[in-house]
């Protein structure tokens, strides 16, 4: 399929450049939208700029970009302002007031555009999906180079956003985390909020004709949300979000050209595919993030289960030795005792043998010295906990076994010595069984 792909640097190169610039510009600001739990405000603002565009056109009756740009930015900031105003006056939650404001403004904008469309080609669908494929055709000359107009304006916006985030990093951090402290120490949180909103509006408007509404909304939210899953440092989060944004733009364009070909279609819209790729990256982050990822949590949970099973195996062998039983259990019998599947018990037994804690004899498994030390620590924890629960927590002796059983796996030597102190160094547990001594290693 790569052969079938017609790649033209002068065309595809510029499309990707425009996509990357717009994605990065949006993602930079998006971090703070996500952290302030106002991700939807990016969505609202980028929809609501429509009446600003239309009004500017009606007033100046030209498609000159500067008045249209200003009109759109002003209405965009007004969206944030109205949202806040309706929330406080109407006493409704932010989502509701945002919904009211941006749908009304968007509808108003559509009506105005349809009115104006009799005189000019302002295409509502172009507003939604953009026309990133067309951007390389509209070039202007900058210092002798022919640069697409969109690349130039988005480049300026991306740089402005980068400068804003770098310069006001500290202030953004403070006013996002603790607006009350920000305001009381002289960094007006409301001012920071509206500065951010102005840049969000500017970014939304600049991305408008080139990549459309949908992509910019996705880029405000998705790369920062994915980055949030992957790190717990703010600067790292911003960095990762920028990388994710840029790579979804690149991969999105390639995918838009190739993926439909697999199914026998011609290429699809690049902007849409960029958003899809960003979504896939988010999905990947949700699954495999090192700390919060679903898969990672599953695996960690499973490993903990296995390590507890290993504890239980050595403790059982120890208790059998203690009672002087000569009977030896094989793997299947152990699986029945602990109510686990054979696969898990075999994995645990192999691991214990690998670590030289048990050895195999003709009729089953024996503890090695190493394994005995481990078991002794566990049994000691178990019986000290039983003693502690009876003497200090006042729980009946016949109800303590299960509690001690779950606590023993998480009790290290240091906690044992504190248990020992608090229970006055007992030698037998409440059931009269001896508490083994601490093994000095």
């Amino acid at each position: 399929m790569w052969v079938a792909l017609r790649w033209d640097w002068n065309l595809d190169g510029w499309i990707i450049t425009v996509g990357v610039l717009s994605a990065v510009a949006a993602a930079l600001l998006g971090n703070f939208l996500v952290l302030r739990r106002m991700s939807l405000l990016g969505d609202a603002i980028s929809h609501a700029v429509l009446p600003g565009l239309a009004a500017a056109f009606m007033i100046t009756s030209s498609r000159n970009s500067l008045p249209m740009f200003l009109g759109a930015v002003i209405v965009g900031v007004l969206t944030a302002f109205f949202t806040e105003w309706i929330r406080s006056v109407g006493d409704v939650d932010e989502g509701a007031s945002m919904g009211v404001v941006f749908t009304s403004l968007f509808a108003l904008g559509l009506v105005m555009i349809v009115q104006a469309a009799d005189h000019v080609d302002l295409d509502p669908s172009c507003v939604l999906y953009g026309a990133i494929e067309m951007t390389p055709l509209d070039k202007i000359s900058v210092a002798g180079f022919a640069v697409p107009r969109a690349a130039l304006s988005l480049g300026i916006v991306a740089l402005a956003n980068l400068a804003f985030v770098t310069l006001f990093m500290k202030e953004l951090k403070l006013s996002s985390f603790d607006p009350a402290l920000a305001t009381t120490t002289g960094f007006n949180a409301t001012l920071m909020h509206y500065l951010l909103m102005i840049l969000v509006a500017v970014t939304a408007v600049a991305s408008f004709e080139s990549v459309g509404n949908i992509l910019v909304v996705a880029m405000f939210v998705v790369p920062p949300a994915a980055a949030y899953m992957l790190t717990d440092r703010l600067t790292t989060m911003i960095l990762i979000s920028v990388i994710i944004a840029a790579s979804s733009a690149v991969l999105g364009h390639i995918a838009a050209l190739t993926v439909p070909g697999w199914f026998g279609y011609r290429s699809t819209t690049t902007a849409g595919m960029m958003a899809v790729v960003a979504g896939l990256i988010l999905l990947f982050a949700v699954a495999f993030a090192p700390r919060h990822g679903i898969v990672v949590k599953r695996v960690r949970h499973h490993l903990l289960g296995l390590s507890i099973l290993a504890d239980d195996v050595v403790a059982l062998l120890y208790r059998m030795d203690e009672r002087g039983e000569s009977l030896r259990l094989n793997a299947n019998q152990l699986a029945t005792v602990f109510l686990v599947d054979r696969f898990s018990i075999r994995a645990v037994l192999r691991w214990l043998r690998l670590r030289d804690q048990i050895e195999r004899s003709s009729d089953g498994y024996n503890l090695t010295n190493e394994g005995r030390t481990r078991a002794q620590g566990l049994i000691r924890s178990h019986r000290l906990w039983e003693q502690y629960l009876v003497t200090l927590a006042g729980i009946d002796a016949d109800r303590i076994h299960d509690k001690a059983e779950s606590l023993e796996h998480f009790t290290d030597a240091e906690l044992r010595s504190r248990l020992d102190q608090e229970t006055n160094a007992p030698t037998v547990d409440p059931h009269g069984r001896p508490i083994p001594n601490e093994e000095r290693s």
Partner: protein
Amino acid sequence: MSKESIPLSVYDLTVAYHRKPVIWDVQFNIPPGSLVGIVGPNGAGKSTLLKAVMDLIPSASGRVEIFGHPYRDVRHRVGYVPQRESVDWDFPINALDVVAMGLYSKIGWCLPVRKKHRQAALEALRRVGIADLAYRQISQLSGGQQQRTFLARALVQDAELYLMDEPFAAVDAATEQAIVEILQDMKSRGRTSVVIHHDLQTVPDYFDYVVMLNMRVVAHGPVEEVFTNDNLQKTYGGRLTLLDEVSEAMRRQERTL
């Protein structure tokens, strides 16, 4: 005593929310270098009072003076410890970052946090006993450790008047003790702390001055004089139902006009 030396004076302060007064004609002076407890039932307007003092919410009438000046002129002399629940503890920063925030106004706009600031923040964390947790993400701190982080942030601010919103809420015994020690230490260095407090039993142990609030000030003064059963009865013995009723009548009338 000159006005300049009084850390906090509140005159006739009324704060209303949708015409419904939350605090009403609140008036008191705080003597310098004292440890002040603000007590009162839920909904008595304790947090509202602190927020109105710092202009975080608008007041309907009245005046607040801090060391004889309006708040905005002297805000660098005031440190604020908000309620622990007021911020998002999943925010991607560590304890040291939070403490360093107390220094932002000293650092100034646009300048980065530098090494000496981080050292000062670390020193403050050491004073509250959690220097070893400085680089831990804040969601992984226990409730008590989060509260200590907030306290450390107030310490680096090096203010003269501290306003604290329930620092003792839901903390472990060790943290409670640590906070009390810090408060005592501040007092011995002439700092004034105004602390919203819930546990009435510890009021005589922790504080030397008390403001008893239930929409209006029921009593204020040295603990041994005003923290009496009689005053407690007045503070906690039900809300001012007639005041509630008249404000409800005001709202009704406005609606029917």
